[in-house]
């Protein structure tokens, strides 16, 4: 079912067959897009079988030859090379967040795509969750006045794959998970000048669990706090926000009673890491429809590659704060980004 009347690629090349690919593949299929899947592990056939669509490519070259647009759903540390390969093949790229493990690599990805003349979009899907979009629209409309104090939380069961728990490969919880809310804070309250963060990791019988908290100071005077958790496997995915401005506030808790309530024995392992259940179109479908369309000459998307770089910079500043134990001044990314924007 195509839910949007916008240009979309005929064939998308999905690289990776892990957790996030399981969200992207069904969304592409529902949008009526053909998908070729390539993964360096052996999970691509199972992914295709599970979703009843898509075709396994035998090599990255085959995928790049067949796809108009590449959707990078691999672990973070592999992003820069894969994006460069796609760009060199002349393919536009949607890249899973975070773009990369460093600001310099993220900027280089932007430069490579610009040099190749292909679009690059970060898959910062929380901007497409209905409650978060409604919040952003309301703030942009001035309903709350000037944003003053913002808070966000994102608590999930710990990711099962080991690479997430190696900060050298994932950037840790602040860069991998909390980047969503760091991005939301910046989207709503503007550029960030200072970041402070704390984190706790504990070993449990089920493996390491982590929680982290960041406090942001925005250039215009607003302050934000973000809490993240990669917690016990039984944890129900839950996100909250509370945004207070000079005229009012809006709050949200995904655990609040929704339009449908079920009181029944729950299945084992009800926890999840990807997203709380939402009604209507999947936020991944909304995201990929908008980003895919933007790559095909449609209207501009609500998130840009430079937003992706800025989000990486915030996550890294938070990590730096963990290392130093102090507050970290965030370099004014605009001075590094504007030349690119003008390009």
């Amino acid at each position, binding site marked *: 079912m195509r839910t949007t009347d916008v240009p979309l690629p005929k064939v998308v090349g999905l690289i990776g067959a892990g957790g996030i690919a399981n969200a992207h593949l069904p969304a592409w299929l529902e949008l009526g897009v053909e998908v070729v899947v390539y993964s360096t592990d052996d999970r691509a056939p199972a992914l295709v079988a599970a979703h009843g669509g898509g075709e396994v490519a035998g090599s990255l070259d085959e995928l790049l030859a067949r796809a108009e647009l590449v959707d990078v759903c691999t672990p973070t540390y592999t992003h820069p090379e894969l994006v460069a390969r796609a760009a060199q093949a002349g393919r536009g790229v949607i890249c899973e967040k975070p773009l990369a493990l460093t600001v310099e690599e993220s900027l280089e990805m932007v430069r490579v795509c610009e040099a190749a003349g292909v679009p690059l979009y970060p898959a910062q899907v929380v901007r497409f969750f209905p409650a978060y979009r409604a919040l952003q629209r309301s703030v942009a409309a001035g309903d709350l006045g*000037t944003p*003053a*104090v913002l*808070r966000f*939380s994102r*608590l999930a069961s710990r990711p099962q794959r080991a690479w997430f728990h190696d900060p050298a490969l994932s950037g840790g919880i602040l860069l991998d998970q909390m980047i969503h809310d760091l991005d939301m804070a910046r989207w709503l309250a503007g550029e960030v000048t*200072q970041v*402070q963060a*704390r*984190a*706790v990791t*504990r070993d*449990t019988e089920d493996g390491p*669990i982590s*929680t982290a*908290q960041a*406090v942001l*100071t925005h250039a215009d*005077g*607003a*302050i*934000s*706090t973000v*809490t993240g*958790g990669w*917690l*016990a496997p*039984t*944890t129900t995915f*839950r996100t909250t926000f*509370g945004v*207070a*401005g*000079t*005229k*009012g*506030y809006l709050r949200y808790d995904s*655990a609040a009673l929704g339009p449908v309530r079920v009181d029944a024995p729950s299945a084992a392992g009800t926890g999840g890491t990807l997203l709380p259940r939402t009604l209507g179109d999947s936020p991944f479908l909304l995201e990929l429809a908008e980003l895919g369309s933007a790559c095909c000459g449609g209207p501009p998307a609500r998130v840009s590659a430079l937003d992706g770089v800025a989000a990486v910079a915030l996550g890294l500043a938070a990590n730096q704060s963990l290392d130093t*134990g*102090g*507050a970290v001044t965030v370099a004014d990314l605009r001075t590094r980004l504007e030349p690119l924007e003008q390009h």
Partner: protein
Amino acid sequence: MKIGIHSLAHPHAEGYLRLLTARPDLQVAIADPPAVAGTPQDGAPRGRAAAEHFGVDYFDDLAALLAWQPDGVIVCTENARHRAAVEEIAAAGVPILCEKPLATTLPDADAMIAAAAAAGVPLMVAYPVRFSVAFDALRSVFDGGGIGELISFCGTNNGKLPAERDWFAQPELSGGGAIMDHTVHLADLLTVLLPEASATSVYARANTLLHADRAAAETGGLVSIEFDNGVIGTIDCSWSSPSDDLVWGGLTLQLIGSTGIADLDAFDAQHLAGFATGAGPLRRGYGDDANATMLQTFLDAVADGRSPQPDGATGRRSMAIALAAYRSLSVGEPVAVE
């Protein structure tokens, strides 16, 4: 039993008066001396007029109230005046319930604790939330191991800009703004949940964007805390409710543990919501009154002479976190808690 209230400067005094005067077993009196020259006043009934309104005895000053020989005195002066009042009451050998925060400086708090100890009288600090049935339920889950080991927490204590009394926005009388007013409630709950742990590092950011036209101190604040057992947490202490909000505000505390998560909504979860033509949205709370439980605890202490919790030392712990937050604001970095 005779209970005195010294000063109606803090609006909580009116709530205490309502509860105390409803009890036939208590005699109640107030002292509400005229404000010091230059102190802004609002239109709330004070002094003799307030005493007549509540039907209680009135005295011109604390010395006269103490001459009435009360069995216990509740101190509701401006925060910065707690020390002088507590020292005078303790010297008279009378048990004390002191409005929070205990004081505005650590030397003041230490002097008050020492004065009560020297006189051998209980000194209790008025932190009602720990007496609520909601917190009791959270605590039983936590103490029962229901969420495993605590690793972090998120607290919010938001409300309107306190408009009943102008001194709240005068740091020399209040000790600060939203941080001093609201951080301490959540900090007190943490002293209950983590009796063995001490806060070691505090980082705070604040602004005056909210209620900017009337803000003489910070109205927005975020406080990040680390404890010596590794627990981390944040407190949003902002006065972020619009002045025409349906409720004054609320307090929430989310505990993130090694095996689970527990959420407290100390006020907002217990209400009916509706709508009435002409009146607009309706809210009718049906929660318990934690103030009544807190006051009963104080009255019990007066009766048996024991020192109840939260005592002066406990009040000092929560207050020290707020004071560290102000030091962090001035240096822009995390600071150690004194």
